[in-house]
């Protein structure tokens, strides 16, 4: 047997390393064709036989609980071979890991994943394959499109393709300290316009007690038929409507003296407990659960009502947040994942149970009338919270998705404090950010 000299070994090792390096320098795989119309149904990659184990990632513990209970029932009722492992991962990490897995061609990717609307746009960036199943065909052919609230599905729809099913309608309402407001003789039913609301709260703001913290700009903008992007993806941040809305928010403190910037993090809940903020005038359905969790002593003190409108007969709600459940196209069990999605996300029972567990008002119309959604809520003085959400639900505005929403928020984020402090104006700020995003969009066109 011939001997392998050290020199020969090193040569071979060097050659192997060189090949690895060259392989690393190979051109990236070409992107699949862009803009192909969505196929009505996409065949699953493999037909599942025997035990089926699906992996689902979510960043919301309440979603995880609900998914687990739905999976247990699905196994019992539909497929005894079905098994769902639900993994809870922190918000940022989960989106980052999903992105890496999709970028790596599905290596280590889950079968189902919850993607938050604020991060979802980033997945649509560029001209490549998103890595998620386009559900448009299935949702249409099974008749779900008409049953889902289209304005919410817009968040997960881009260039005619729908990649996710929304968990919540996220109707926004006013949560208010009924023990203070109603005791002061305010008839909340008469607070129909924002002007009425300001006038009613003004006399109640004393010392360090104010009506509210600064309201979300994008949320109020949507209430007023605007948004940061229109349905065609054009930047709308620097419109007069957007600038005027921000000025109005700042006037709550500057002119009316009824608002103050809320403290960040846990200090916010301490301030709420101490009664320093009398209302949360534009918060989503899921905030009902937050109040219960973080302010348990608030039981019997808080109630909810529709948001005041900008003008008579105007919209009395908006939308805020949202999470879409998606199927990863690299899953071995796409077909089973779709069946489970229908059982959980697209059924009356699944939507009702989710509301009871998480306070997420269903975006699935057939579930909205279910009696179980209208049980009196002890925390909110036995108010029928479902009735409040159902009342404003049909008016929830659309929120259009854009691959650039995440970067726009990232550019806006360092500027809010200076806006609140009056060091910069909404007009200059919004124009600067809007132009920056337009420039990026042009570069990537």
């Amino acid at each position, binding site marked *: *047997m*011939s*001997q*392998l*000299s*050290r020199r020969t*070994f090193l040569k071979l*090792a060097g050659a192997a*390393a060189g090949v*690895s*390096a060259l392989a*690393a*320098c190979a*051109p*990236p795989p*070409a*992107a*699949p064709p862009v803009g192909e119309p969505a196929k009505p149904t996409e065949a699953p990659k493999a037909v599942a036989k025997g035990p089926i184990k699906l992996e689902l990632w979510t960043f919301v513990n309440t979603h995880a609980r609900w998914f687990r209970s739905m999976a247990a029932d699905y196994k019992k009722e539909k497929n005894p071979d079905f098994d769902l492992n639900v993994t809870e991962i922190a918000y*940022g990490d989960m*989106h*980052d890991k999903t*992105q890496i897995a*999709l*970028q790596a061609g599905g290596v280590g990717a889950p079968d189902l994943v919850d993607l938050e609307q604020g*991060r979802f746009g*980033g*997945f*649509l*960036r*560029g*001209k*490549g*394959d*998103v*890595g998620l199943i386009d559900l448009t065909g299935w949702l249409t052919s099974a008749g779900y499109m008409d049953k889902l609230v289209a304005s919410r599905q817009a968040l997960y729809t881009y260039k005619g393709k729908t990649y996710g099913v929304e968990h919540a309608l996220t109707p926004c309402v006013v949560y208010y300290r009924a023990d203070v407001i109603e005791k002061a003789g305010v008839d909340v039913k008469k607070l129909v316009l924002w002007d009425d609301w300001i006038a009613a709260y003004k006399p109640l703001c004393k010392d360090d007690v104010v009506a509210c913290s600064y309201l979300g700009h994008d949320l109020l903008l949507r209430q007023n038929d605007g948004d940061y992007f229109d349905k065609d993806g054009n930047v709308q941040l620097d419109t007069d409507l957007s600038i005027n809305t921000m000025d109005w928010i700042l006037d709550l403190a500057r002119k009316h003296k009824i608002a103050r*910037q809320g*403290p*960040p*993090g*846990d*200090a916010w809940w*301490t*301030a709420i407990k101490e009664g320093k903020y009398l209302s949360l005038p534009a918060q989503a359905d899921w905030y009902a659960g937050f109040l219960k969790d973080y302010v348990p002593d608030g039981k019997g003190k808080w109630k909810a009502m529709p948001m005041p409108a900008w003008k008579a007969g105007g919209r009395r709600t908006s939308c805020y947040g949202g999470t879409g459940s998606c199927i990863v196209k690299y899953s071995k069990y796409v077909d089973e994942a779709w069946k489970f999605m229908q059982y959980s996300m697209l059924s009356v029972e699944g939507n009702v149970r989710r509301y009871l567990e998480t306070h997420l008002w269903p975006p699935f119309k057939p579930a909205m009338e279910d009696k179980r959604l209208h049980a009196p809520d002890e925390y909110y003085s036995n108010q029928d919270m479902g009735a409040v959400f159902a009342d404003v639900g049909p008016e929830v505005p659309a929120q259009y998705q854009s*691959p650039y929403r*995440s*970067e726009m928020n*990232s550019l806006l*984020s*360092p*500027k809010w*404090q*200076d806006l609140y402090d009056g060091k910069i104006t909404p007009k200059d700020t919004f124009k600067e950010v809007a132009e920056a995003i337009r420039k990026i969009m042009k570069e*990537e066109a």
Partner: protein
Amino acid sequence: MQWQRRIAPYIFISPFFILYAAFHLYPTLWALYLSFFQQTGIGSAAKWVGLGNYIKLLSDDRFLKAVVNTSYYAAGSLFIILPAALLLGLAFNIRDLRASSFFRLFYFTPNITSGVVVAIIFGLVFDFEYGLINNWLLAPLGIAKQRWMQNAALIMPAIIIVGLWRYTGINALYFLAGLQNIPHELNEAAQIDGATRWQVFRHIILPLLRPVVLFTVVIAIIGSYNLFGEPFLLAGAEGGVRNAGLFMTMYLYLNAFRYMKFGYASAIGYALTLIILALSLLQLRLLGAFKED
């Protein structure tokens, strides 16, 4: 069987090299390659831009801001954290110091605490309304409450305070190790010759500590430019008001994971590498690491 004996050592050490090549070398080379392309979005095709990404960095306000911020923190590490650690190391080295083991453990503990936990706790410590610093340190001195995380001028000092709390102890232990290696006879001889404490420190201890100073300085520079968790969690992904707490690593993260600009993020990674390399070499040269004794 001769060849088997010859190859055996290489096989024994090969797992490290295989893993290193797969998980370090390959991504490192791939990132270098990617830095010459514009690749934006999952599964998108890469477009050759040559040095375009690097040239763009030079006119990117947020990148330049991140370089300034990161350098600000590095300066804090060098001129505040390390001197504090040296003082602490000298204190640990006092003979007959009671409970010295307890103090060493006490000051070392912050270093083994998770960065995430530290950032969350300090988020509460710096809170305007209810925070420890405003209510327990500043208020008794009659100093007005400060908006630590909402004031662009205070964000970096706040992050340096966290760094001071977290990294002073471990560096003090490095200095202590160096101090304990200095023969005590040298101090005694100098004192007999009439040297003051300062002169002993300046002309005996400090020169003999040079290898440890060199080590801590280089580690501090590398650590500062690689810092991510604390500023990310304390100031937010964008570094808070006017990007005052935006570090280079955070800007890399934003580009890769929020904007999906993989090529540009790779270029930031290599720019960061070049800065660390240049500063480390400069420090090694200034502190005479290349001199032959």
